[in-house]
């Protein structure tokens, strides 16, 4: 199988050609290792970081920005949004604090991306 794609690992946006099957893939057009990793992953198990927000109580604003600590399978993005819509955290929160463990059984935690003191 052969596919042309644009790498989203960084703003360079390299045009990749990924060729192969099973466990055997070659990536060309990338300018760094991340491109190779992305190209292969995109063919075998496409994943994305999910940045979103959850409700926070007792802080200056009402939403706390969060993200999945690692990329989660692309197909689980909307399920993760559903799960996160039920999360309510209390201020204070520090950047990196886990707000939800093991989102959608991916083994990946959701962490705060902002420090918010209690007010």
């Amino acid at each position, binding site marked *: 199988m052969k596919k042309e794609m644009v*790498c989203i690992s960084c*703003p360079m946006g390299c045009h990749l050609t990924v060729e192969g099957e099973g466990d055997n893939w070659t990536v060309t057009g990338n300018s760094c290792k991340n491109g190779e990793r992305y190209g292969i992953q995109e063919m075998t198990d496409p994943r994305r970081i999910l940045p*979103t927000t959850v409700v926070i109580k007792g802080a*200056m604003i009402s939403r706390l920005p969060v*993200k999945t600590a690692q990329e989660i399978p692309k197909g689980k993005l909307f399920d993760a949004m559903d799960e996160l819509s039920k999360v309510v955290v209390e201020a204070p929160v520090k950047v990196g604090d886990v707000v939800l463990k093991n989102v959608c059984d991916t083994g990946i935690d959701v962490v705060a*991306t*902002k*420090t918010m003191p209690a007010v």
Partner: protein
Amino acid sequence: MYDIIVIGGGPAGLAAAVEAKKEGVDNILILERDRELGGILNQCIHNGFGLHTFKEQLTGPEYAGRYIDMAMDLKIPYKLNTMVLDLERKDDDTKVVHAINEEDGYMALEAKAVILTMGCRERTAGAIGIPGFRPAGVFTAGTAQRFINMEGYMTGKEVVILGSGDIGLIMARRMTLEGAHVKCVCEIMPYSNGLTRNIVQCLDDFNIPLKLSHTITFIHGKDRVEAVDVTQVDENLKPIPGTTETIPCDTLLLSVGLIPENEISRGAGVEIDRRTQGPAISELCETNLPGVFAAGNVVHVHDLVDFVSQEAALAGKGAARYVKGHLEEDINFTTVNGDGIGNVVPEKITVANLDDSVNCYMRVRKVSTDTVINCYIGDEKIATKKARKFVPAEMVNFKIKKSDLEKYHDGELKFVVEPKEA
């Protein structure tokens, strides 16, 4: 009397203040009109920031947080909820910043140097003159971003987005994840104005159509948006009769360009470059007014915050040198946009202030492959910038060596897009 007052506590202001402090200037004050430091990054909750600066993919609040931490570690004072009204220069070259907040009331703050880092703002429906009423449901993409990501209000369910700049693309994904149906993104140009990676991860990932060479010609609805007319345009960007499609929606997001926010600069007599709409600056970000520096999106709109921080650090360095009396003011070179180049920053270069090179930032006017950007002094080509492709959406960073400039001493640096030589 402060040594340096920084107007704006976003990424540019923070980076400038941090650098000035590292250069040994202690008496600094940051003025921020919002309720917290960090600027617009606080609402940019998506990841992808900081790859150049921190070598990792950070979200906006994380990137801002790093700089806020640096400023706090260096104990740089700041005032929040503080609106700067005016900047004035006295005859003895003291700068007076007129500002106001609830705690201190009106203040006239004196400083030896001022750094302008007020950022930019979005063009609105009025700015592009879309016909129709002015119903609820028309937002700039950034306003919707703030509502959704910070205040927790959803701005609509059936969405059309005009403009394929990065903010529009990011909001297409954001609203989709939050349960809205984004019907399409319309772009008047035949190419997108956003980074390619954002087309991929924001539109393609969610099957959102991108309609190139299309614009919005009418907004239906008097109280709330009910639909928009989407029309194809010809090569002169004129709507083509008979190609109009009416798309029902309750929300229209506009991502139609950013304009540097220079009311304070203009009032103070800062010379504005009509190409960038921001102050004309030197290699260390000094404006035409001695001791007044400017950096970040107030100077020209950047596509990556990493470059904002880099530029702002130069402004911090320049201001620190000015305060200490170490800034050279003899301008050797001016920069000119030749064929195919929209604008160039900095506009003037004093070689003595350079370490080993100067980064010239520029935008090309149209998409091209098989071209290079050449830099000329007179008839002599002194440097060439190569890339697989040049697109207007992506700012070109063209590094020129100090040693190359020293050979010529002075003149005009002209940047031209030319065919690649075989």
